[in-house]
């Protein structure tokens, strides 16, 4: 029996996440608010904790939670940060 493949026939390359750093001390951590309600509350608290551990933080915000982050934004975060945290919230 022969059938035709109705999918996009994607065959993405598997990539492992980068190794977790042993410490955030001295690292620049991006904090991405996806623009959901109360995301700021969550990120404020995380930012406090990161600063206590000696990390530098940079805040970012998506224009809307309903769409994927613009490529310019993800490139900016990648260029400016060692790590990134994304707040889903609600």
């Amino acid at each position, binding site marked *: *029996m*022969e*059938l*035709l493949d*109705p999918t*996009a026939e*994607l065959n993405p390359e598997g990539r492992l996440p980068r190794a977790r750093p042993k410490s955030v001390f001295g690292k620049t951590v991006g904090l991405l608010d996806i623009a959901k309600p109360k995301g700021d509350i969550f990120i404020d608290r995380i930012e406090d904790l990161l600063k206590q551990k000696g990390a530098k933080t940079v805040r970012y915000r998506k224009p*809307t939670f*309903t769409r994927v982050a613009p490529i310019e934004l993800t490139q900016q975060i990648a260029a400016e940060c060692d790590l990134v945290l994304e707040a889903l919230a609600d």
Partner: protein
Amino acid sequence: MSKYQLFVKESCGTCKLIEPLLPEILNQLDVELVSQDDADFPEGYAVTFDESLERSYRANIEIVPTLIKEHDSGEVSRIYGWDKAAWQEITGLQFTIKLPLFQPGCGSKTLDPGMPEKLAARFEADKLQSRVLEFTADDDIEACFDQGWSDGLPVVPPTKVRLMRMLSGTKRDPQEYIGAVPPDLGRCTIEKIALNAVLAGCKPEYLPVVITAVEAALEDEFCMHGLLATTYFSGPMVIVNGPLARSIGMNAKGNALGQGNRANATIGRALQLVIRNIGGGRPRQVDRSALGNPGKYTFCFAEDEAGSCWQSLAEEKGFAAEDSTVTLFAADGVQGIVDQKSKDPDSLTRSFAAALRVVAHPKLVMSSDAFLVVSPEHERVYREADWSKQDLKDRLAELLMIPGTELVAGAGGITEGLPQTAVDKVLPKFREGGLSVVRAGGAAGLFSAIIAGWAASGPMGSIPVTKKIIV
């Protein structure tokens, strides 16, 4: 010097009628006889037996007999059936044998039921690009389940023949690129849409509607990625307007929002299967919906324009009455409105407004768009009072201005609500353009319906998209 090809079949009375003429023609002209069904017909002549029908298919023969005249540069002209004057003209001969002046031909074997798609699968497979998968299992429907192609219900196995039959529903090139389907941004072509239309159970004539629905879903303002990924209930709902909805037999009348009509059921399903199979959008994966809704199997209907006193949804959006369109809306389920007593439009509109107030939450405003589906018996109230659809929308907008005191957090003992800064305002329930009205349903029943939209309706989330259908 001209050459001729004469396509015939033994089972055709007209082909047999002209048999006595063949000596006159073959003595004077260079004619190749091509028989579709019998290697020995016409008897006594050198015959090319087109057993595979490849010659007939490639020559696009629709009727037998067909006589094709060729020069070195290719085909010059063709005639079909028997018409003495036309045959004399194309051959340049004067026939001496007595025959009737005219007799229509018979259908070519290439057009027997089920044959065009079989021949297309055999002779035009090079136009297809989808990977061919081989299965050893004996149950093709189970094989489709195993591949993960199903929404939970059985699908029609996508064979090459079924794909070819589906593609006969559009003139568009199978390899035309339509866009990248979220969330995986899978490459979407007409061929891939047609394969999912096969899975869904569509007929070929539904394919243009499905293609247009996919195109609408891929418009940025529809926000298909977010709609798929949301924890909310919503999924794409398809409303079809215009003559095509009627010609393909869509249901706009009794049970329009329910089961039982193949076009309604399979067009909505095909769109969902495109998101699943081409886009990779699956429940409990990137589809994060907390509860979903039954419309995520399929949600598609036509507006009942024929009996309506109102402008159609498509006309409101600037399309002509003869245009056929697809409108996509990020929709939840159906909420009924009962009003069996209102005889005047103001009273009925107040009922609608009271019911619309609770969309998403009675204390939330301008978050969810909505469609109000007005049944014929309710529409009659407006018709008799000479209210246009716009009159109804304008009155609803007035009635759905809500004091902030009722909306702020804590009001009514309910923590959900707007910030206290809204307390002195009067706010509209729906954003401007957020409430749409269509007419559909059976002749009896003083019930209308609200189809609420995604809580992220509007420019920052999803807005309804209307596109003209191209066949």
